[in-house]
């Protein structure tokens, strides 16, 4: 069994059956996912609907439709089985057809789907059998023309990954550009190009050209529209640096490309020779052009090439405005630059706060959107360059290289409220509601502006929430520059005015002189926090009210150091309070020390593990303590507090542990070691590095209760959540609602909620999703849109007129009600109706 070794007196875990996606959680052969979420919004560019009121965003296996006015999700297109890679909205040719909501999507599952996203409904499905990484449909309008009897064939160009070819020397060309007939669902023509990896296809708005970048070259194809069969011509443009992105001018033959060093190249008049109708100019002319061509490399087919350089790092975004006068560019530094194409003058939208990934403009000329690497989509007003609305998903894990093991920023679950707190790259903490699958708030931990993340020097390293979720404690670490100016800050936050809002209460600079803090934990009942440091001491902090000035207005309560403790000068690596708060357990490298937190009295020391303990956790209200040590001799051990001895232990690499609040169960997220691959060779699926298993234990019994296999467990986390019964659909009231749920947050911050105890396969549907579909905002139109609504002026004339009438019984309301065959004939009714009107007049005039 190698390193995947389960010691202990149980019979061990039966080998888990790994499945391809997070979606499928295996529980003794069956799976049930209650709720999933935390999808990335920025895996591929979004698309606006043809009226500009909706934004279609690829979110994992689905396409989410957001309202651009409110920024709230309206609906979801479900049908693909793996990630959706592109979405193309069928534009409207006439104003009347603006209400039509059709779109094409492509996915890695090898299908291309045609949707009506207003309903939402899957209309057609085209299978191409190869994972589609990118797709453009040059003449997408073709299908929308309903008037013609015979529809022209609709073609799409797709970038696919073909893994059928054997991977020799790791040099096989997997990426292919294909042409696909969507009407007949068949491949049309041969392979246009082959690249090492599948590339992103960029098409021009006019539908004439499309291109890809390939290392230092750009491949541009022209689509000849005449004739039913597409004739495609190809040219290449060269550069000296690796290119990253390209864009086509909407009307002219201009192509812009960004490279990895931050330069923007603009080729004007590309393909004059190759793409011209009459096969190419006379020789003498060509020589003339040859002389004039400025900056064009080699014998590339372009008139001129100019270079703009502002971006300090790779250009990620290039986009021409719809009128072609401006070029938008952006990159890692998080600044959107607007270039005037003729002059090269710049305008900036700075401090967006994250690297930019995509820029998409809408049919509505005042609206465009930028997608940022921090899983946010900002909707911009084009004219004033201001952010109107932000659609934010769960923050993605920090993309920084692991500088130090100590700087691993974990997340923290608020079990009662169903929130997860995630440290972000922009020195803040995001509170994300797991049940509602949306951001609750962001708390800025360090007052610093966002910087391009090539040199991250300040990291939020630790965070902890109190049991009631009303107090937050964070640790941020500033790395020193050659030994100068390193700083550790411990901060305490109070609950603010809104949900998930926190205000700073106390800052403690260098709480353990210059040593790093290994753990912080809140006391479950009173205002007490323990912080342990690698320098060999732990401190207990209490919130103090100034006692001296009791009679006067009490000064702001701050946090103060209550006591300091240390054990043999060993570095303190983990700390935890027991459920009732009477015992504080602090791990001093390999031993566990127990303290009385109130009196700061050393109580006992227990056991010795093989390597440094990194996590300590009391199992609910039971008498057991869980210790996790990682490294080469990873160990999960359960200690009995009554016997002060080890109860049982496993030799496994636990990424995260969680203990149920009241019960005596706990769950461990176990990282599978490398050798797990060998073990599972017999089965068809292989385990990739970073996959893991969730194992549910009963604390008294080393035999696991249940196991689930999950993907991307590295950097993931699990937690028990207290189930809120109000969120469960009433239709399922007959079923016993689960008291606790387990949430698994993967390394990519996608999460899944499920009931770890239930045996049935039925899935409880959650009404929190359903209630989220909002009513679309009824926008004002015409006069009201410009001048706002008129106040209601009661017309006097009407009042005078109505004066003679007495309030009538309105008999027609009852006369006309009922089905038609019950009602008396209309001739009878009419006279009664008129009478009822007339009768009242004489009585009023009396």
């Amino acid at each position, binding site marked *: 069994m190698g390193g995947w070794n389960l010691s202990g007196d149980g019979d061990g875990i039966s080998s888990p059956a790994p499945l391809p996606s997070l979606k499928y959680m295996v529980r003794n052969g069956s799976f049930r996912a209650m709720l999933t979420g935390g999808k990335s919004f920025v895996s591929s560019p979004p698309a606006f609907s043809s009226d500009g009121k909706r934004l279609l965003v690829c979110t994992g296996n689905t396409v989410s439709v957001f309202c651009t006015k409110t920024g709230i999700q309206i609906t979801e297109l479900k049908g693909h089985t793996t990630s959706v890679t592109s979405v193309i909205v069928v534009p409207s040719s006439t104003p009347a057809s603006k209400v039509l909501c059709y779109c094409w999507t492509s996915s890695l599952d090898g299908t291309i789907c045609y949707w009506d996203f207003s309903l939402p409904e899957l209309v057609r499905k085209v299978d191409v059998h190869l994972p589609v990484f990118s797709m453009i449909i040059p003449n997408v309008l073709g299908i929308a023309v309903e008037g013609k009897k015979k529809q022209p064939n609709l073609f799409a160009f797709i970038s696919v990954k073909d893994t059928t070819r054997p991977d020799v020397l790791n040099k096989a060309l997997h990426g292919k550009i294909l042409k696909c007939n969507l009407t007949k669902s068949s491949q049309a023509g041969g392979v246009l190009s082959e690249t090492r990896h599948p590339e992103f296809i960029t098409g021009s708005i006019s539908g004439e050209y499309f291109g890809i970048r390939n290392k230092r070259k750009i491949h541009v194809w022209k689509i000849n529209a005449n004739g039913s069969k597409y004739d495609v011509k190809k040219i290449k443009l060269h550069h000296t640096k690796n290119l990253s992105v390209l864009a086509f001018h909407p009307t002219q033959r201009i192509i812009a490309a960004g490279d990895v060093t931050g330069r923007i190249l603009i080729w004007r008049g590309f393909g004059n020779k190759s793409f011209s109708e009459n096969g190419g100019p006379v020789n003498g002319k060509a020589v003339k052009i040859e002389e004039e061509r400025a900056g064009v490399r080699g014998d590339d087919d372009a008139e001129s090439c100019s270079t703009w350089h502002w971006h300090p790092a790779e250009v990620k975004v290039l986009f021409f405005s719809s009128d072609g006068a401006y070029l938008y560019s952006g990159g890692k530094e998080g600044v959107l630059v607007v270039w005037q194409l003729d002059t090269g003058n710049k305008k900036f939208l700075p401090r967006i706060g994250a690297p930019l990934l995509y820029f998409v403009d809408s049919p509505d000329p005042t609206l465009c959107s930028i997608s940022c690497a921090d899983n946010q989509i900002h909707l911009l007003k084009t004219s004033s360059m201001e952010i109107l*609305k932000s659609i934010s998903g769960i923050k993605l894990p920090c993309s920084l290289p692991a500088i130090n093991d100590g700087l691993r920023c974990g997340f923290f679950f608020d079990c009662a409220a169903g929130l997860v707190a995630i440290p972000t790259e922009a020195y803040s903490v995001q509170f994300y509601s797991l049940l509602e699958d949306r951001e609750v708030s962001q708390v800025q931990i360090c007052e610093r*502006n966002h910087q391009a993340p090539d040199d991250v*020097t300040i990291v939020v390293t630790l965070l902890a929430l109190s049991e009631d979720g009303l107090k937050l404690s964070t640790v941020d670490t500033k790395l020193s*520059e*050659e030994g100068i*100016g390193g700083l550790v800050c411990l901060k305490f936050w109070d609950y603010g005015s809104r949900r998930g809002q926190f205000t700073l209460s106390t800052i403690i*600079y260098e709480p353990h002189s210059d040593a790093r803090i290994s753990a912080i934990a809140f006391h479950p009942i009173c205002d007490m926090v323990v912080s342990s440091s690698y320098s060999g001491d732990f401190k207990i902090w209490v919130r103090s009210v100034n006692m001296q000035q009791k009679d006067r207005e009490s000064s702001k309560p701050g946090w103060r150091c209550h006591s300091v403790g240390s054990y043999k000068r060993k570095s303190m690596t983990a700390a935890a309070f027991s459920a009732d708060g009477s015992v504080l357990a602090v791990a001093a490298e390999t031993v566990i020390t127990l303290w009385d937190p109130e009196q700061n009295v050393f109580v006992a020391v227990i056991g010795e593990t093989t390597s440094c303990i990194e996590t300590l956790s009391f199992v609910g209200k039971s008498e057991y303590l869980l210790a996790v040590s990682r490294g080469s001799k990873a160990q999960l051990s359960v200690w009995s507090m009554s016997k002060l001895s080890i109860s049982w232990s496993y030799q496994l690499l636990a990424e995260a542990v969680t203990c149920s609040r009241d019960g005596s169960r706990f769950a461990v997220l176990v990282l599978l070691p490398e050798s797990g691959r060998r073990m599972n060779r017999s089965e068809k699926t292989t385990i990739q590095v970073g996959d893991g298993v969730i194992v549910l234990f009963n604390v008294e019994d080393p035999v696991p209760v249940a196991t689930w296999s999950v993907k991307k467990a590295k950097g993931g986390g699990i937690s028990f959540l207290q189930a809120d019964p109000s969120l469960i659909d009433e239709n399922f009231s007959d079923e016993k609602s689960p008291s606790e749920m387990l949430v698994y947050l993967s390394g990519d911050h996608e999460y899944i909620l499920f009931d770890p105890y239930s045996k049935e396969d039925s899935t409880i549907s959650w009404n929190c999703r359903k209630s989220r579909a909002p009513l679309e905002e009824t926008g004002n139109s015409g006069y009201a849109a410009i001048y706002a609504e008129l106040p209601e002026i009661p017309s006097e004339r009407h009042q005078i007129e109505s004066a003679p009438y007495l309030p009538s019984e309105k008999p027609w309301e009852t006369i006309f009600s009922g089905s038609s065959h019950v009602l008396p004939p209309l001739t009878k009714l009419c006279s009664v109706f008129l009478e009822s009107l007339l009768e009242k007049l004489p009585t009023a005039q009396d």
Partner: protein
Amino acid sequence: MADERITTFPVKPKLKPNSKKLSSTPESKYWRSFKTQKISNQNNPITTFPITSIEFSPISPHYFAATFSASVTLYSSQTFDPISKISSFSDFAYSATFRSDGKLLAAGGESGIVQIFDIKTQEKKEIKSRSSIRKLKGHTRPVHVVRYPSFDKLHLFSGGDDALVKFWDVASETQVMEFHGHKDYVRSGCASPISSDMFATGSYDHTVNVWDSRVASRESVIKFDHGHPIEDVVFLPSGSLIATAGGNSVKIWDVISGGKLVCTMDSHVKTVTSICVGRGGSGNSNREEFESDKSRLLSVSLDGFMKVFDYSTLKVTHSMRFPLPLLSIAFSPDCSTRVIGTSNGVLYAGKRLKKSTVEDNKLDQWSFGSANEPQKRVLRPSNFRYFQRGQSEKPSEEDYVVKRSKKVKTAEHDKLLRKFRHKEALVSALNVKNPATVVAVMEELVARKKLLKCVENLDIKEFGVLLEFLHKYSTMPIYSGFLIALAKRVLQLRTEDVRSSDVLMGHARNLKRSIEEEIRIQQSLQEIHGIVSPLLRIAGRR
């Protein structure tokens, strides 16, 4: 949401813990509200004489008389200007004191004669009336204490270095009584605030005697021993307590219970020279004020401290340091002025700004404005105010106020940091000379990993400024952790530049000196720590 996103964070210095002492109680705020100004009033600045006594006139406008050299000077308590100077003394004058109606002033002197002056004529500065109106001759030695009884306008008592206390009838210039009981110089005295017949004197024989002019035996009614030569005696406003100053201590005695010691204040480190009673300010409706009816004992000492002692709670509530030995103190009856005299002729006069006076001024202005009303002209575009008219208009209740967005002030270094001009930002912060800001900018540069690059790029002059800064602040405890490491690195980086320039060498030498000094301090602190820690451990064991 959009607004939140675009906000930028300026570079902020680290927060400092605000110590509980500084977060002042209303009382210490009150005592600090006396804006102290220094009056070095003597015409001849070369010979400076100690100011032996100060007393306020009991009636408004509360002039105060300061006695020094061979003269008594009257000052206005509003402007602190000298009003008049009585210099008809042949030798040193002592203990100028006002009568209860403030019309007469009496002073003793080195010559042993007590002289009475008329204030009114002194105010008018009539040359003729500079001389005294009465002279009481009887003491054979210098008279250091002269006091009027509280309500009695006809008598006064005096005490001299001949250890005698005499009770005089002023009008007839005759001695009514003579009290025996002291065995040394009588240097202080005070009349009882509740009785015209009772008064107390303190002597260098360590005793205080309370006398009653109605007792024919001429012996003291109460006598108590302070333990040190007594410098000052004061009846507290109730009349039942006496405060005495002598040696390093101030003691309070209960007169009614026959001279029982109530409490002792030992917070001075040198001889307490003078005490007086101060009260909380009246007429101010400020809520933060401590109650105006509470009286405190103010004491000054040769150690340069003025302390405010709350004798009801037995606590020193405020303490203030002056650079000179202090000899005398007086607190005006309207609680607006406090004057302290020093040993070399400097007066520290402190005055409180009163809100009532501001209101008075307002009233004045208003009446002034109304008088000028008819002259108000119609504004024309030629007038600058024409363009500002209506700007100060207050919105009425139903008006919707469109708020102007607040202009964000950005410091220059912030602007430069935003433009990534790191070196300029550092230089601009160094030129502002606020150490907290400089360190904050440096820390920001560290966060951008640009600090050492900046230091390398500084030219010689700017580098000199940096070295000067390091010399000044690298030993300050709040910055030292950061700056010492920086100083070391900076000197390593630019050794060549420092060697080549004399100015920089000078700065480096200064830096070295301050660090050596700091090392010495640290060593001696460690020694002290070594001494104290075993003691603490022993104390902890018990």
